[in-house]
């Protein structure tokens, strides 16, 4: 059986996918979810081969949900938004169905998946490509899994970030959160006017900065409002000066 999960906040839209899937007897619909939280639970529980995923959904959108999935299965996006998809996605996700879509178009997407499945692969996209996927909007928040909970952190609340193996430590002043991502990813997706990569391992939010102090030799440190001291690399110091216009 091919295990499938449908994630869409509109019941009728889920119904349409269900109806189209009824002509595939080998497909088993494990779950239908109305938001990303339910979607994450269903993916963890059923480990589906394929998910149909809407982008605009309550609380966390489809992209944010995907970020929290360790080894995402094949994804077919179903959405009325063509803004991001047509440009960045068509080649990365397995397919991208623009609502309203016909049965023929749907079958084409399924055929793609079946071919892929025959080759024993689940994804078209390599992890490297995955990192360059553009967010639907300027990233204004980061979704983090914390124990069994999902936390939504507005980027404004982030003081600084520190690289930590395969993870990034996110410091909000109140707490530290771990997110499985790279510094490069955040350097690319966060607003460069707001966040500056000051070191191979550090990125700070500019408005948290209070002063720059000389440290050992001819190196400098950034002092944040919270009192945290962040080492600056040579190029990081130059970048910071440019960002501050000094």
């Amino acid at each position, binding site marked *: 059986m091919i295990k499938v999960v449908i994630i869409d*906040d509109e019941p009728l*839209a889920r119904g*349409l996918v269900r109806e189209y899937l009824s002509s595939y007897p080998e497909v088993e619909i494990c779950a239908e979810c109305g938001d990303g939280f339910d979607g994450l639970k269903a993916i963890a529980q059923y480990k589906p081969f394929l998910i149909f995923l809407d982008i*605009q*959904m309550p*609380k966390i959108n489809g992209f944010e949900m995907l970020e929290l999935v360790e080894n995402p299965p094949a994804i077919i996006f179903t959405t009325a938004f063509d803004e991001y998809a047509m440009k960045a996605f068509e080649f990365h996700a397995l397919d991208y169905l623009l*609502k*309203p879509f016909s049965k023929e178009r749907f079958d084409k997407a399924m055929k793609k998946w079946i071919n892929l499945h025959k080759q024993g692969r689940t994804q078209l996209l390599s992890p490297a490509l995955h990192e360059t996927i553009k967010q639907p909007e300027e990233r*204004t928040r980061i979704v983090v899994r914390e124990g069994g909970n999902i936390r939504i952190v507005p980027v404004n609340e982030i003081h600084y970030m520190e690289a930590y193996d395969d993870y990034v430590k996110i410091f909000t002043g109140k707490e530290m959160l771990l997110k499985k991502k790279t510094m490069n990813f955040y350097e690319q997706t966060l607003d460069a006017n707001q966040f500056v990569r000051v070191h191979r391992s550090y990125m700070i939010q500019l408005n948290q900065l209070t002063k720059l102090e000389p440290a050992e030799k001819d190196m400098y440190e950034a002092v944040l409002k919270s009192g945290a001291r962040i080492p600056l690399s040579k190029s990081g110091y130059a970048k910071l000066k440019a960002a501050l216009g000094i």
Partner: protein
Amino acid sequence: MLFQSLKYSLIALVCLIFLWAPVQSWLLVQEFKLAWKSAILDAGVTSIFLGLGTFLLFNTLNYYRIEKKQLPISVVGIAALAYGLMIGAESTIESITKNSIEYMSGFQLQRILFAILITLVTLLIAWYSTTKKNATEEDQRRLVTEKMARDAELASLRQQLQPHFLFNSLNSISALIGTQPEKARNMIQQLSDFLRGTIKKDDSQLVPLFEEMQQLRLYLEIEKVRFGHRLSTNIDSDNASLSAKLPPLLMQPVVENAIKFGLYDTVGETEIVIKSRLDNGQLIIEVENPFDASTTMPRQGTGFGLSSLQRRLYLLYARTDLLTTTQKEKTFTTHIRIPQV
């Protein structure tokens, strides 16, 4: 235009004959000891020549716009014209009186100088009036262009119907066709009625609130089909407010914004509350939606849907205080005030 210049030239001619001609006659009698009859003849012919000259000049200048840098050459040309006119006048007078008159050469200088003076004044008046006319025409053109730009902007602000709404609705219809064709047909009807209501609207024509509410109900019914039990609405209008007038399609973007806000910022059910009342001759509309302050995406200003409405209200009423928003605990409220004239 020809009529106008004709009128001015005639006035100039009459002025010349009635005001200057007596002075010239008197001068000729006093200074050159002419007989009154000859003096009046001379002054009359001079005035007629000058009058025709100014008439021609006026007409010409109406069709050719003189640039500032062409003024000196025009002055020279006009002096030549005046000279020619006066020579013409002299020979005409001589041919009428049938003999050469000795005073002619003595009076020639004054005659020509006077003619130059008159034609130059004509030139200046014509130049000034055409320049001014062009300026007012330009003003009017600018006003018309500005109004067209404003109308176009208003139209585009009005028509900011989210295409996503349309595509998602069509997707819902597509889903209904398979399982509940009657409902699909019903939704197509609602969608068509709604779309018909959004076109052919003119901002200058205010609509009563009950008409706007009908349109809004269509929109809400469609959204309810899409979102199922997650979306409910509560409309509370007092009777007096229902006949109050407002620009068409004003409320839909507000409600659209509220639904989006409510449905995407919370996971549970969303109730949209719409209230309207009449207060101190103003129509007050309030739209409430639930929201979660802790996870709401940081929003700049009032959000896109509302900022275009803000702009529209500004273009219509020249006020920026008609649209406000408040956040209280778990409720986000949009307030609109529409002055009633």
